[in-house]
């Protein structure tokens, strides 16, 4: 029997800092701004938080313990995200388990970075030994080159065209026109612009790539006893999972960890992929959104292109994807790329998404990260619902 696993825990607050190309602020200040915003949206004083998770690529030499000290939080529970863009959801799921067990009452799950292309490339050289020692010595093009190899194989195996890969970047850009915090707010993207963009790593061109940026996102989880006293909209975690290094020793089968746990996740939630009102996917590259849609049971393997030809994924469509623009249009703020979808899902389910608000009761959020020898090793996802 699968327990309805995250009963007794609620997401009670969410906030996002200003997203921008550069900043005069410190990373610590940026993280605090997201945390402070989330605490206010939870109607909670910051000092009541007794657990903290932080995911950030550029935090060293500091870490989550130092952030607790810096912010004046007495913490009886800490988490540091070591799974790249899968960390945000994993932070949330691990925190929910500890809240259920009574080890902690209120956990802030925080992610953010001050990020640009040079910082990204330098980081990848030293990200881990398989990537740094056996790929990065060559002109492999960093993450763009790594995912060009998967994109080429996906196109070859399933006949997906450039137009097929264009569908999500273009729809997400439309969504970003209703999100004033998106980097590409005010800049539409046409199919012609997508198809004629300069090549970065064939077949990946400019609009298949995220724009590294500055930003932070935060959600706050609380026990039911705390949540019920706050008088704020509550969001429940209906199901979730994580998987790493799946399939083992198999880099190029165009699969990821989601298929290993999504059946159990839907069983936990007592619903099916067809019951989802939206998906907030980890959109580092369109091909990985395709593989997530397959692994999460929204489309059969190889069926994403057909699905996108008949499905409007904008905020006014039948299955909205990345309703705030996602990383492709809002920007990739480093490790916040693993939290931007959580922030967006919670904001939609609280009914606070303003111009981009969709009608929704429950939806998917997905994470992916820790690129190593040719692929990202970590996958995560959760089903969140309006209470």
């Amino acid at each position, binding site marked *: 029997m699968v327990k309805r696993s995250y009963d007794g825990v609620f997401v009670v607050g969410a906030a996002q800092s200003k997203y921008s190309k550069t900043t005069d602020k410190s990373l610590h200040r940026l993280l605090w701004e997201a945390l402070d915003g989330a605490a206010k949206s939870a109607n909670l004083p910051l000092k009541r938080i007794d657990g903290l998770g932080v995911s950030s690529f550029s935090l060293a030499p500091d870490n989550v313990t130092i952030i607790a000290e810096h912010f004046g939080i007495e913490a009886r529970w800490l988490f540091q995200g070591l799974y790249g863009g899968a960390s945000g959801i994993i932070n949330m799921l691990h925190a929910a388990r500890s809240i259920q067990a009574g080890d902690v009452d209120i956990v802030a799950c925080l992610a953010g970075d001050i990020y640009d292309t040079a910082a990204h490339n330098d980081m990848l*050289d030293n990200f881990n030994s398989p990537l740094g020692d056996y790929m990065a010595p*060559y002109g492999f093009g960093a993450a763009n080159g790594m995912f060009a190899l998967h994109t080429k194989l996906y196109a070859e195996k399933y006949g997906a065209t450039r137009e097929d890969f264009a569908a999500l970047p273009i729809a997400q850009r439309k969504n970003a026109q209703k999100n004033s915090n998106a980097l590409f707010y005010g800049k539409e993207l046409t199919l012609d612009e997508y198809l004629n963009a300069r090549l970065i790593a064939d077949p990946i061109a400019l609009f298949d790539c995220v724009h590294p940026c500055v930003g932070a996102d935060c959600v706050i989880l609380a026990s039911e006893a705390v949540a019920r006293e706050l008088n704020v909209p509550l969001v429940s975690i209906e199901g979730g999972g994580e998987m790493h290094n799946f399939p083992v020793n198999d880099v190029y089968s165009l699969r990821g960890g989601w298929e290993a746990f999504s059946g159990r996740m839907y069983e936990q939630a007592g619903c099916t992929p067809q019951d989802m009102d939206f998906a907030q996917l980890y959109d580092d590259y369109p091909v990985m959104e395709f593989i997530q849609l397959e692994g999460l049971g929204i489309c059969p393997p190889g069926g994403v292109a057909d699905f996108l030809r008949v499905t409007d994924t904008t905020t006014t469509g039948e299955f909205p994807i990345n309703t705030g623009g996602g990383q492709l249009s809002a920007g990739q703020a480093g490790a916040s790329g693993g939290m931007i979808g959580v922030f967006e899902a919670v904001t939609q389910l609280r009914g606070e998404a303003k111009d981009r608000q969709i009608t929704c009761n429950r939806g998917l959020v997905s994470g992916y990260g820790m690129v190593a020898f040719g692929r990202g090793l970590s996958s995560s996802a959760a089903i969140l619902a309006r209470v």
Partner: protein
Amino acid sequence: MQNKPLPRVTIINRPFLEACNEGRLVLQHCLDPDCGKAVFYPRVCCPYCGGGELEWRDVEPLGHIVSFTLVHKPQHEVFEANLPVPFAAVKLNAGPLIYAELVEKPADTQQLLGAPVRIIFRDHAGDQKLPYFELCA
């Protein structure tokens, strides 16, 4: 201009990198008789069976292209001398996957998936040679 990045030489990968300098491709092989697989990248144990007995052996420097890209925007300036950079994933005949650049940009990229390649060793940076791929005639 900076040099091309190099792998960090460690107690784990030193035999591989030293063999590169001698123009030989060596891979670890699992000594468990029920496994016996060849391993790359270099490890302290076999990632197929978990066994801890690995032996370095010469393998034939041949494989085929699993996927490739032409990189127009490499991650560092040092790679911009010869654009685009042809970069490929190759499955070695011995089993494992390995990454490297092709020594020259192929005239026809339409037929590259599955194309057989030979692994050769070229000066990379400092005193270190690294594997590169050359299309078989």
